[in-house]
């Protein structure tokens, strides 16, 4: 029997390390477009980390709803940013 709690913990830590790598693009990425995709990549990783937290704390039924809301907000935020900068007509 594999100890799945520890395995989920390890996967979460690896994902959070990748989030820190993405944070470089989100902070220093040249111009606004690179920042948007950096934040989007962080959002997708957070989606998985939230579900893994649910499995670690044994409350998946609660955390899955938070994860759905996070996915929706991430998508809407990306679309809103894209629309805004397309209407403004200048990104660099």
């Amino acid at each position, binding site marked *: *029997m594999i100890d799945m709690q520890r395995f989920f913990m390890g996967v979460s830590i690896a994902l959070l390390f*990748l989030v820190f790598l993405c944070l470089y693009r989100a902070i220093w990425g040249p111009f606004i477009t690179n920042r948007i*995709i950096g934040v989007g*990549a962080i959002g*997708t990783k957070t989606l998985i980390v939230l579900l893994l937290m649910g499995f670690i704390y044994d409350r998946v039924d609660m955390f899955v709803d938070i994860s*759905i809301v996070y996915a929706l907000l991430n998508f809407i935020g990306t679309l809103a940013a894209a629309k805004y900068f397309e209407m403004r007509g200048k*990104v660099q």
Partner: protein
Amino acid sequence: MDTMTIGSIMTAIFLLLGLFFFAGGTIGLLRLPDFFCRMHATGKGDTLAVLLSLFGLAIYNAFDGNFALPYILVSVKIIFIAIFWFLAGPTGTHAISRAAFRCGVKPWTLEHQFKEVEKE
């Protein structure tokens, strides 16, 4: 070998595959030369990674509750997130790249590389 062990092994395989694609997307986001190349790396890599990871977690949840109805419903919700992200991720990628292209971001070509070499 009982059913829980089979479920755990399948979950581990799917999660590690997802982690691999997440790592590939992140390396592409950091290393590729311009905006459109980075978009390509994260847009495709992260979508596949989310699908694989969520599928693995849904399998684990179903095996964890011995396929009782409440656990199956939570698994269906997780699969729903996967389907939603399968539609939403490429849509967001397309929206940002269209906005950038209309705002006049030039795609990176081989000529840029040659110019940089000549400057040096």
